[in-house]
């Protein structure tokens, strides 16, 4: 092949590359995320509403999937996952608590299965659970020395807007129609059809 023929091809490639980078930048600007996140209802609540909300979920027939925690700039984000046997659909309950006084009420009285999950959070983050019957180290050794292992360094902490750019983080009221409707109608069918 002669060089003359090859050159226009290279030029074409260059423009393609340029287009690609333009495309990438455009993508970066708008926050992209999955069509279906795995959550069918997802709420930020204030810590004093937690027991109330969990009680309502219990009455609605949900089971506890897990209790998790995320270390963030605003404090610890406690995440409770619930799902239902008869009408499957995942509910995420998020509660922000301060790093200075990391304490949240234990949901052990409603879901005894939470006992171990809460002990795990106590191990990994140092979060204390009020009225927990047996808040001892579960997975870490009792003589573990040093800070809880999943605490992040100050410089590595991200805030809520960086992780959840396109949603509000204001707590909803447990008695609001929005919350009650959402957990009653919670189902993964419509969410999954979207993806």
């Amino acid at each position, binding site marked *: 092949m002669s060089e003359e023929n090859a050159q226009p091809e290279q030029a074409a490639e260059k423009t393609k590359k340029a287009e690609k980078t333009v495309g990438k930048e455009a993508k970066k600007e708008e926050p992209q995320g999955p069509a279906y996140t*795995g959550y069918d209802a997802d709420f930020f609540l204030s810590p004093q509403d937690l027991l109330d909300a969990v009680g309502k979920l219990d009455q609605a027939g949900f089971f*506890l999937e*897990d209790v998790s925690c995320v270390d963030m700039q605003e404090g610890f984000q406690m995440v409770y996952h619930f799902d239902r*046997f008869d009408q499957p659909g995942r509910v995420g309950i998020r509660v922000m608590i301060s790093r200075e006084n990391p304490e949240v009420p234990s949901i052990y009285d409603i879901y005894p*299965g939470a006992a171990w999950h809460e002990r795990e959070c106590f191990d990994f983050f140092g979060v204390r659970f009020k009225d927990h019957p047996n808040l*001892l180290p579960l997975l870490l050794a009792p003589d573990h020395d040093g800070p809880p292992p999943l605490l992040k360094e100050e410089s590595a902490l991200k805030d809520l807007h960086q992780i959840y750019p396109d949603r509000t983080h204001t707590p909803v009221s447990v008695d609001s129609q929005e919350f009650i409707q959402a957990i009653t109608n919670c189902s993964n069918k419509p969410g999954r059809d979207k993806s």
Partner: protein
Amino acid sequence: MNLDLRLDTQGDFYSQRFQPTEREDTLVLNMGPQHPSTHGVLRILLEIDGEYIIRAEPVLGYIHRMHEKMAEVMSYPQYLPNPGRTDYLHALAWNWAHVAAVERLMGIEVPERAEYIRVITCELNRISSHLLWWGAILLDLGAFTPIMYAFDDRERIQDIMQRNTGSRLTYCYYRFGGVSADIDDKFIEDTRAECARLKDRAKMFKDLVTDNFILRKRLEEIGEIPVDTCRKYGATGPVLRGSGQAYDVRRAEPYSIYDRFDFNIPVYDSCDSMGRYLVRMDEIQESIKIIEQALDTLPEGDYILPKAPKRPKPPAGDVYFAVEGARGKIGMHLVSDGGKSPYRLKLRAPGFSNLSLFSEVAQGTLISDAIAILASLDLVIPEIDR
């Protein structure tokens, strides 16, 4: 003579905090972490009255490896082998939950053929996991021979899987966007032969073990778990289905291509250890049905997305992905800040929730029955401790 056999100031951190109740005729017994029936390093503190258990408290953490921290310091591809090291018996389900969570966050569509290969291999792995459980529960109950039969079939499945996955136990076969290698005709042929063989073996398993009078005496009406207890503790998988609730993530929250296959969800409402036993025996046959249908309709095409990212950097966000493992619902809660490693990855281990109800169920049972209950929960300790 007044012999006080109870622990007062002796013992370690946990036994000191496991104080005996008011009664003076009880004994605190430490079972494990090296007890053979605890399948690894589970430790249980028991307060017993003769042969009867008054209280039981599992002590965890003997094989804790902090997989969740490792996720935060490793990049996504570096972490690929880790999930399979938690539940080493159903490694592919964990592998799947991890890659699928990342795929969901990035919006990656997995090629059709890759989905089929995932279903086939994951179900093969489920069968081999159930076979090992079957051998192990019988070993715990004092029957030595069945595990030899179980291993005969298990080894065949491992031989088949070794061809394309490259390993026999802690598989790391799924990649972001597909699987690491295609399956060939030999794999398909061997899998079909093994499916036919396992169908045949089912009758022998039934005659040899399931119908056995002693086994039934050891499992029937032992360790009854009402369905509401399962709900309160978050128990899933065969434990839940043995309590009469037809809940299976493959149906309830269908992922991949499971909605295309015709299979039943075995349910027994006896709530006892026998119910959980029968659920798993039936599940082996249901998995065979899924594999055969998948092999019949296996499409041609890519086994991995050609443009699949080798070093993924998912956008900032928060997703949850659940799959049905041999022990129940495996969940991955992935929080990303847009970096090359997760901001937070929470692993939901089904065995963790299933074991947490043991304290309640073991109350008032004989020690030998508690062993049967533990075995019927199908525990894999590295998964519980993570």
